[in-house]
């Protein structure tokens, strides 16, 4: 073999060859992640490696907010306190009302033989940062596998639904917001009881109702709450408000825009709801009302 170069000049494969190899590798990873969702373990491992760096990067902000917490003025505290007392009074009044209604409801449900809705246990979490991917609407919260969070849990703030846990890491989880383009929430119009599917648009503060017939009764200002037929979101949580209704007879469907009620991009504290009780078989009469296509595709 007199034509092999001496070891000094052996430089391994050329950059182009390496580019090909690593591009192929990236393509495989991309496809496995996007189409088949196979790489959860790899994500977990990398997440553990990244975690200390993320913690370190978040430290200045955390320290800053702690320092500003320390210097809260007396008047600000008094103002807060007064506001909270007022709100507390208001809430306790409505809580009493709710309590009475709940008892009545339990009684009626008992009469109907329906299964009582169990209040799902909740877990408080804090949004650490908004995931920086410009193509999606996601946030990271500071509870993960260690806190018992699973993918699919609904996440709410004190006003309404903000999204759903989609990926869980050991100490963090990723929440896909309801404004994310691929995210669907089955909802119910409070005024009319009409069911629909609310989908995100990828645009902050804008949601839309798809495939609503032109004649359907939707008005500006209608409140939409979760209908609970997907087994992901418990029923009755406020989601959005209709802001724009356009009925153009050239199209098959009405174009209905909504805005989220909850502070989807504003609040730092959120609640992760516990697992919903496994749904029993649907009662016969209920099944007729729920067309197959309106169930949430997950």
């Amino acid at each position: 073999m007199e034509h092999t170069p001496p070891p000094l000049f052996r430089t391994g494969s050329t950059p182009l060859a390496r580019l090909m190899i690593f591009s192929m590798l990236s393509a495989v990873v991309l496809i496995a992640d996007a189409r088949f969702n196979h790489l959860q373990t790899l994500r977990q491992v990398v997440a553990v490696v990244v975690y200390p760096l993320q913690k370190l990067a978040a430290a200045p902000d955390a320290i800053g907010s702690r320092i500003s917490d320390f210097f809260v003025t007396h008047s600000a505290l008094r103002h807060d306190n007064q506001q909270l007392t007022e709100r507390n009074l208001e809430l306790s009044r409505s809580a009493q009302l709710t309590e009475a209604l709940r008892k009545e409801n339990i009684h009626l449900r008992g009469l109907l033989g329906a299964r009582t809705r169990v209040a799902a246990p909740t877990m408080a979490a804090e949004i650490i940062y908004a995931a920086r991917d410009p193509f999606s609407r996601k946030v990271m919260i500071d509870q993960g596998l260690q806190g018992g969070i699973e993918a699919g849990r609904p996440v709410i703030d004190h006003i309404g639904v903000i999204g759903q846990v989609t990926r869980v890491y050991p100490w963090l989880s990723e929440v896909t917001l309801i404004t994310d383009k691929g995210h669907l929430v089955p909802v119910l119009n409070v005024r009319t009881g009409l069911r629909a599917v609310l989908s995100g648009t990828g645009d902050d503060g804008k949601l839309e109702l798809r495939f609503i017939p032109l004649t359907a009764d939707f008005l500006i200002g209608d409140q939409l709450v979760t209908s609970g037929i997907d087994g992901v979101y418990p029923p009755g949580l406020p989601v959005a408000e209709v802001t724009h209704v356009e009925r153009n007879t050239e199209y098959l469907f009405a174009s209905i825009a909504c805005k989220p009620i909850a502070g989807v991009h504003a609040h730092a504290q959120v609640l992760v709801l516990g697992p919903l009780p496994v749904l029993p078989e649907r009662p016969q009469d209920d099944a007729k009302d729920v067309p197959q296509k309106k169930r949430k595709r997950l």
Partner: protein
Amino acid sequence: MPASSMSRQELLLPVRPGFILVTLIIGLLINFLPWSGWALWVRPDFVALIVLYWCIEEPRKLGFFAAWCLGLLMDVSEGSLLGQHALAYCILVYIGIALHRRVQRFSMAPQVMHVILLLLFIDLVTLLVRTLGGAEFPGYTYFLGSFTGAALWPVLSHLLKLPQRPRPDPDRV
């Protein structure tokens, strides 16, 4: 080539691998800072910038594998598709290595022009990947980061050269 666009060649000490590692970690840390609002749009990808710098300045020190792993770290922390940044960084390394002799010879202004085009190119690759994956175009602000990144290039290049500048010899007057 006019002499004005040529840079004065400096003699620098060889870079220590530890220093490259430290700069990459700092780049990751800056990327992980809780950016929000408009800062998020203007923010350049510091890791990409630093990777590009080392590929142009020391093309044998930073390999494809390291860039690929850094890309995976970024993908997981940003919650984007796994492999998206990895692919972008590999392409960046390749072009960096391919062009390093050329870019090194230029003075700062033409270097910045090269960097703008390179960063925009990997933005386009990422956009293509995500569009194939079914995402929607996030708006033209998406490209802003590349311009700020290129604007930071002179500063970055000055800072990263500092430890390699030979200390003035105390024996010579």
